[in-house]
């Protein structure tokens, strides 16, 4: 970082970030080398024929591939009815939306469902702005998503 018209005070190196220290939460968020690593925690549980993916952390261009890989893995294992719980998500942008839309297309190809759980207004707002509230069934709890069975609503 440098302050305009001043001496550079910090410059994030353009090379691999080995030796740099950051106060970001550090954990395995992806397989890419270098740079600060942001955590995205994914926890999958099965409830009947439904797979519930609890997502915790920030979904952005860096962490979205991890979610995409998990959702592709579920579909390839034959889980076509998926609930993605976004209650633990602190941040979501178009890359996260892209992953969810991609997963929706995959489960629909198998006549499956992709339901979301979200009550956070700041996250719901992203779905409203992009018109995706009409595309995704969104529930206020995992229980209500599970109770809706294999139906969309």
């Amino acid at each position, binding site marked *: *970082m*440098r*302050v*305009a*018209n*001043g001496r550079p005070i910090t*410059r*994030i*190196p*353009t*090379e691999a*970030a080995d030796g740099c220290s*950051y106060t*970001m939460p550090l954990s395995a*968020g*992806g397989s*890419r080398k*270098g*740079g*600060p*690593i*942001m955590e995205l925690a994914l926890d999958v549980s099965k409830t009947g024929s439904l797979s519930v993916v609890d997502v915790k952390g*920030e979904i*952005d*261009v*860096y962490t979205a591939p991890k979610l995409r890989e998990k959702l592709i893995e579920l579909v390839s294992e034959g889980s076509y009815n998926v609930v993605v719980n976004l209650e633990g998500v602190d*941040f*979501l*942008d*178009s*890359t996260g*939306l*892209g992953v969810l*839309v991609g997963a929706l*297309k995959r489960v629909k190809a198998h006549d499956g469902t992709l339901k979301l759980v979200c009550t956070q207004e*700041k996250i719901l*707002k*992203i779905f409203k*702005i*992009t*018109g995706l509230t009409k*595309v995704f069934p969104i529930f206020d709890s995992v229980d209500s998503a599970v109770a809706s069975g294999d139906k969309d609503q």
Partner: protein
Amino acid sequence: MPSVGESSVVELEIPPGSAYVAIVRLAIAALARGAGLGEEAVEEFKIALSEACTNAVLVHEESSIHEPVEVRWIEEADRLIVEVSDRGPAPELVKEADQFDSQGFSSRMLMSRVLLSALADGCEFLPRAGGGTVARLVLDRQRPSG
């Protein structure tokens, strides 16, 4: 923070890697809070900023450009401005109708543009001196609530 005329300016450079977009969000969110922006407005601005940074980082990755992505924060009396500069080729003008796939789903880029225009009070794309694009986001400091 030094002032340039009536403005305060902070510049950041990040490597063109996706991991660094979160760093920019943290830094700009802190600056926005310091400028007195409310938490809801900060959260919205973070998304618009993330969109601009993501687009810049991706254009560098796609074009194998290793130079940094530049982020410039300008704090003025009545508005906050963030400029995100990439050195990639100028974005192709794609018709909105072409941004939908065969199933009617919009592309990530279209969703990104929709979020940018909805969450910033002003958003424009300008040519960068020396090549590339500057995404210029403006936030009025006196935002109508809601």
